[in-house]
Structure formats: C-alpha cells, structure tokens
C-alpha cells in the first residue's frame, strides 16, 4: 500500500511539474527565478499593501509605470505585487529567466493567466500608444514587439521579454554578403536594403525566442533538468537557480569555432547554484546552495576545513562593533583548488592556453609551498570596531611679516572608522624577514613592539608620521593591522579586557562558521555625523530609513553535505509586532516619500 501511495505522490508531483510553466523555460537559460506569486501575494495582503502611499500612486499611474519599466527593472515587482489586478495567477509560480542565444539575448518574465480579460487589458496598456510596435501571430500565440521589448501571449500564459540582438550575430553572413554583393543604384537603395534585411533578421530572432518559450521542445526545458528539480523541491518565496554547465556552454558558442573548451566545461559540468529567498515573520533570509562536481568536492571539503584562531577574537573590540567580514580556510588546499581551476580554465583558452600552463608550472616549481603555508594559516578577519575621533595631520601655510610663505603641519580631529585586520600567521623566521625588508624599504617604522606604516608617497617628507596613522604588530601568532594605537600598545600582548570583547553570540558565530559577515545597523548610523553622511546624502538617507527597520545582517557559512555546500544571509528586522514584509514595505514607503519630496 505504501508503495502505491508513494507512486501516487510521485505521479502527482510529475503531473504538477507538467502543468507548471517551468516546461516553457529553456533548459539552457543562464539563470532562472521561480517566483511564488501565491506566497508573495498573501504576504502583501497581510502587510496591507493597499494602504501604502507608494502603492496607491502606482495604481493611479499604472499605465505610465508599465510602459516605462523594463522586465529586469521594475516591471516584475509591479506585476507580482498586483497579480490580481493584471489577471496573473496567484496559485502558480511565475518565472523570470535570462537566456543568451547566438541570435538573441533576452530576459523574460513568464506567468500563467488567471483572468484572460484582465491580462488582455494589461497587454493593451503596454502596446497602446507605443511607437513602432510590430504585431504578429505565431503558432498558438500572439505577439508584439518594439526596439526594446517583446510581449507574447495566449489564453494560458503571457511573457514579457527585454531583448538585445548580439552585435556579432550575422557577422559571417556579412562576410558572405560582401563576396556576393548586389549592385545598387544609389547609397539610399543600398542602405534601405540593408535596413530591411536587418529588420527581417531581428524579426526571425524574436520569433525564435517566442517559439522557444511558447512551443518548446519538451526535452529542452528546465523542468527536465534534475538540478533544477532539486532546487524547487523546497518551497520558497523566490528561488534563484543557475546551472553551471548552461552558463559555461555559452563559452563554447564563443570559442567553439577557434578551439576547444572541453577541459573548462568538464569542471563546471556538474556545478550549479540555487538560492531560496524568504520573507519570514522577523527576518528576510537567503539560503545559498552550491553543488560542485565530484572533481571539486574533495578539494572544497579540504579547503573548508579551516577554523578561526581563538587569538583573533582577543583583538576585536565589541563595544561599538560596526561589522566584520572573514574567512577561515585551509590555505594549501585553497591554493591547490584555485590553481587547479585556473589551470583548467586557462589551458582551455584558445591561443595562449599552453603558454599560461607552462608559466604556472614554473611558478609552482619555484614556490616553496612548505614555507608559504607555514606562514599563512588561512584565517583572516576584517572588523570595523567603532567610528570615533582620530588625530589627523594636515599641511597648511603661515606667512611672515613680509608675507613669505612657510609650510607647517597642523593636527585636527576627525571622525573616522576604527578598523582592525587580523590574520593568523606562523613561521616566525619568515615573518621576521618580511618585516625587516619592509623596515629597510622605509614602508614600516619600528616602534616599541609594533610598527608604523608609512605611505610610500610620503617617504621623502620631513615628517613621515603625517596624516592618518596605521600600525602593524605581530603577537600571539596574529598579524594585527589597525589604526587603533591603543590596540598595538596597551593591549597587544594581553588582548582586550573581557568586558570589551565581542558578545557570546558573535563569538559563537565565528566559532561555528568559516565564512562570516556581520553588520550592525544601529552602531553604524548612530555614530555618523551629518558631514560624513553628506558624502552620499541620498544613499545615507535611504540607509537611515533602513536603520529604522533593520537590526542587523549576518552571513553564515559554509556547511557541506555531499557535493552540496551552503551558506545563508539573514537580514534580521527590529523586534516588535510587525512582520518583516511590513518593515520592508515601510522602507519602500519612506524612500518613495523622500523621492516625492
């Protein structure tokens, strides 16, 4: 009985896929977004989208917005947010995909029709009053196009395309034409003939794209792609999928006639990537999954086998932490993986692949790997720990009684970010040699237990310790580069006092992940002055609005399961009763009001 039930479930799943529009998405699409219109629509309803001013304004000016927006710009969010109004099915997934053919490159948005009358009205809105719109009928669909956009539709589905005819398309025809050039009485005739030919070529390319979507070869759609099936197994508000082989195959189109790129294709053949994006109650998440081929699996696993050195944490001031970004890998495995990819990719390049390969072989022979990987331990972290006043020197001029000019240096305080870069290092002998070399080259000045970094452009100045000062120190097998003098003097040996260290939550974050990122919204904006913000006023205005709703952002990675490697990005909203989507819509509302003002 359970086998029968399983069979029924499998059957219903396959039947579901067959009905789904994924069987109209070409399998060689560069990337595909699966938009769960039902989930998004429901969440918009919960957040009372209709009450927001920007939405009301959009509704009042629908015609203007629709005709002015490209598929890859604002059209998709507008259509998805208003699914009901435009007759877009809210029970079926919609698809946004990018496809590069040799005859046409396009981004298409494909959706199922739930209300034919409303969908027709939408199409009429977009086609109406547009200059240079060509109309046509294909097999089982109608279409319209102008220089920028194509619309194809039938009673079941509608697709909008942004398109571009590649400049190299038809280049060989042009060569052939030149050999069998016809005679024209005048330049005007010739120009007219060429223009007509170009138009015909464009129409053929457009029809090819439409045919590919509306009358696809069942064996050449994304619904038959096992990697894609895996990506859509788990439901999400939006799923992004990119197939490595599909993307790399484009290279074959480009280089195919000149040489082979099989080596390169083989390493990406089983690589694919997908991301599940969700608007949850209190946060917005993006979970990334990357599938690597067997060729890379072991290398990735070896690379991933890195941990952050506990000593690094001793030097991160957590009191006013703005954010950090870091990675911990096995450097030797990482190097081997990068070189392997590079070698395969470069050797596939027509013309100079052999030369590059030979160069890399020589480089590998000369590189003393034992020394290098004993020196670089593979974990590094960059943190911005505060925004505070720093002493900054500057040059100005004084004048004597006869107004003769004298150059002087003055000091002033400026609000600047305090940063620290930390990396584990070993091989004391080698690090000592490197430091000695830098001191000899006058790029570092030795102080008591630490070094002052000298800007190469100020080497010949009287006062080298001019401007913003940066320090280097090596202590507890940690390389410290910072602009916080206290860190390399008072706390260099002992590390920061416990009450100044990062929180337990952040320490766990670093302990459990080997690719990390963190950004604290409040600490960033509360410290910035109006003057700092004025550098990018519009940007900071928007970010400040963001600060009102975002608590923090974090990157966590990289976990692995077989050939799958995953990481996730989380945008945590401020605690409260509001849903994450409400916060997001409020942010959109604030930005809209800012622009209207």
């Amino acid at each position, binding site marked *: 009985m359970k086998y029968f039930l399983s069979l029924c479930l499998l059957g219903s799943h396959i039947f579901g896929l067959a009905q789904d529009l994924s069987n109209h998405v070409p399998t060689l699409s560069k990337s595909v977004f699966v938009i769960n219109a039902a989930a998004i629509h429901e969440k918009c309803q919960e957040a009372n989208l209709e009450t927001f001013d920007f939405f009301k304004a959009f509704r009042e000016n629908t015609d203007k917005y629709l005709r002015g927006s490209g598929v890859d710009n604002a059209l998709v969010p507008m259509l998805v947010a208003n699914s009901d109004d435009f007759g877009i099915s809210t029970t079926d997934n919609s698809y946004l995909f990018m496809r590069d053919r040799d005859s046409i490159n396009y981004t298409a948005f494909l959706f199922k029709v739930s209300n034919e009358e409303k969908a027709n009205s939408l199409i009429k809105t977009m086609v109406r009053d547009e200059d240079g719109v060509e109309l046509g009928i294909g097999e089982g669909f109608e279409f319209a196009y102008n220089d920028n956009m194509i619309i194809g539709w039938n009673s079941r589905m509608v697709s909008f395309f942004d398109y571009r005819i590649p400049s190299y398309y038809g280049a060989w025809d042009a060569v052939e034409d030149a050999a069998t050039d016809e005679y024209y009485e005048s330049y005007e005739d010739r120009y007219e003939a060429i223009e007509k030919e170009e138009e015909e070529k464009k129409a053929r390319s457009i029809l090819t794209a439409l045919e590919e979507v509306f009358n696809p070869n069942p064996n050449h759609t994304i619904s038959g792609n096992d990697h894609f099936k895996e990506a859509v197994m788990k439901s999400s508000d939006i799923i992004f999928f990119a197939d490595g082989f599909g993307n790399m195959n484009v290279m074959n189109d480009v280089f195919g006639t000149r040489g082979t790129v099989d080596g390169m294709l083989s390493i990406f053949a089983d690589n694919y990537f997908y991301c599940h994006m969700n608007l949850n109650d209190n946060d917005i998440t993006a979970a990334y999954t990357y599938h690597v081929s067997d060729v890379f699996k072991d290398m990735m696993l070896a690379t991933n086998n890195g941990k952050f050195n506990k000593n690094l944490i001793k030097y991160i001031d957590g009191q006013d932490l703005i954010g950090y970004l870091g990675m911990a890998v096995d450097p030797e495995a990482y190097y081997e993986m990068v070189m392997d990819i590079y070698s395969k990719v470069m050797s596939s390049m027509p013309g100079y692949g052999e030369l590059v390969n030979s160069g890399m072989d020589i480089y590998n022979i000369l590189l003393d790997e034992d020394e290098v990987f004993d020196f670089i331990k593979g974990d590094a972290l960059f943190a911005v720990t505060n925004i505070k006043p720093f002493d*900054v020197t*500057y*040059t*100005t*001029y004084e*004048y004597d*009684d*006869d*107004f003769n*000019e004298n150059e002087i240096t003055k000091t*002033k305080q*400026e609000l*600047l970010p305090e940063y620290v870069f930390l990396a584990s290092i070993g091989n004391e002998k080698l690090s000592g040699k490197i430091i000695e070399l830098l001191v000899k080259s006058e790029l570092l000045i030795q102080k008591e237990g630490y070094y002052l970094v000298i*800007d190469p*452009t*100020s080497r010949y*100045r009287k006062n080298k310790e*001019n*401007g*913003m000062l940066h320090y280097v120190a090596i202590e507890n097998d940690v390389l410290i580069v910072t602009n916080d003098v206290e860190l390399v003097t008072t706390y260099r040996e002992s590390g920061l006092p416990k009450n100044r260290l990062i929180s337990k939550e952040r320490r766990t974050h670093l302990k459990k992940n080997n690719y990390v990122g963190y950004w604290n919204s409040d600490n960033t904006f509360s410290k910035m002055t109006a*003057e700092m913000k*004025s*550098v*990018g*006023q*519009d940007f900071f205005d928007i970010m400040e609005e963001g600060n009102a709703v975002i608590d923090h952002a974090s990157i966590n990675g990289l976990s692995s399961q077989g050939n799958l490697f995953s990481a996730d990005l989380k945008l945590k909203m401020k605690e409260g009763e509001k849903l994450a989507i409400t916060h997001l819509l409020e942010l959109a509302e604030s930005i809209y009001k800012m622009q209207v003002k």
Partner: protein
Amino acid sequence: MTLYIECFGIILAVVKFLSKSKKLKRNPRVYSTCKIFKFYLLFVAMVTMLSGCFDFVEDIKIHDNGSGEAKFKLNLSKSKTKIGGIMLMDSIRGFPVPSKEKIHEKLSEMKSMLSNQPGISNVEITENWSEYIFQLKMNFDHVNKLNVALKKALAKEDRAKKYVYDAYSYSNSTFSRNYVAQDYSEFSEWKTDFATVLEGAKLILIHRFDQPVVSQDNSKYMLSKNSKSVMFRASFLDLKEKKVTLQNTIALK
C-alpha cells in the same frame, strides 16, 4: 581674469551643474558642453560638497615693467582623508569621480595649453597627491598676457565664460586687481545649503612688487612690513555674500 575666478566661479558653476545633473543628462548637448570643465574642477567641487575645507592662494610677483611670476595654489590637505575616501569611489551623488590619472592628464593638458600662449613661460604644475596640494606656476611678460592666457584656458567653456574678466592691469606704476561681483542667485536652486559648502574655504591673495606701495584703496588688503607686498584674506562665503571685494588699486613708488 585669474585662476581664482576659474576656481571660484567654476566651483559655483560645477555646484550648479551637480545640482542639475539629472536634467543635464537628459540633454546631450548641454551635457557635452559641461564635460570639458567637469574634468578640471570636479576635484574641487567634490571638496566643496564635503565641507569647504580648502585654501586657494593667488601669489603674484609684479616687476616694474609689468612682467612677473604667478602662482596659484589649491590646498585640499585639510580634507585629505575625505578626498582619499572619495577617490576610491566610482561616483559620488551619482556624479563620476575622476581617477588620479585622469586629473593628471587634464592638468598636463592645461599646462601644455598655457605654455603655448604668447608671453607665458616656465609653466609648472606641481601635484602633491599625499596632501592633495596642487600648484600652477608660470612667468609672464606682462599682466595683460596673463589675462589673455587664463582667458584662453577657459575659452572652450560657455558656462565658465560669464565668470571671466581681466583681473589684472598694470601701467604707470599702478597695479589694479579687478573684481566683478558675480551673480550667484542661480545657485539658490541647489538643494544643499550654499553657505555650508563654502564654510571654511579660504581665499588668500598676495601681490608682491619691486617698489614699495605708496597707497591702495581697499583696506582689506594688509601691507607687509617692507611695504612691498599686500595680502588679502577672506572666506569664500564672505565673497559670495558680497561682504568683501577683491577690487584694489595699488600705487607704487
């Protein structure tokens, strides 16, 4: 006409240009006209957008026969950390930030253009990229030649032309530093407070002579101890608000 005019007048023009950049982008003809001087002075405009912490020094030595040496120095050192940050960006407020190479190229073009002007010699441009101090130095046969040379340097740009006039004259042991007060009302459209932009930006004029100064008609110009030099100091804001004038006629012994 002086490089000061070029700087101050065009700073204002650029500021206006920035405030209207969206409109200009839609008009290819206007955009094309503006891009010539955009390169020269975007650098200065970027600083004005920040805080106005810069000094501009005009230092001119005039000999008895009207020849001399002119030095124009733009000192952005006080804003160097901010400029250093901006130089790492591709654009600021939607306006592209020129690279160090591009600025160097444009300054070299200016040097070559001035070198080819009759009566102008020994043109030198000094670029100090660690302190952001830039100096243009040249010798001139007569102040009239200096007027012409600087005028030609701006001749390509319609927008800049209206801020241009003959700033120097010299005859019969009388030197005049001329100044035509500009109408900056058009900059009121700019959404950032104009006063904030020019706050802290200083203008220093020094005029040196072989002979002692007998008299001058602008009390804002200080006389040196040896009586052979005069100096004017003011903020760009005072100049914009017409609280001071650069106009001065100096009679020499």
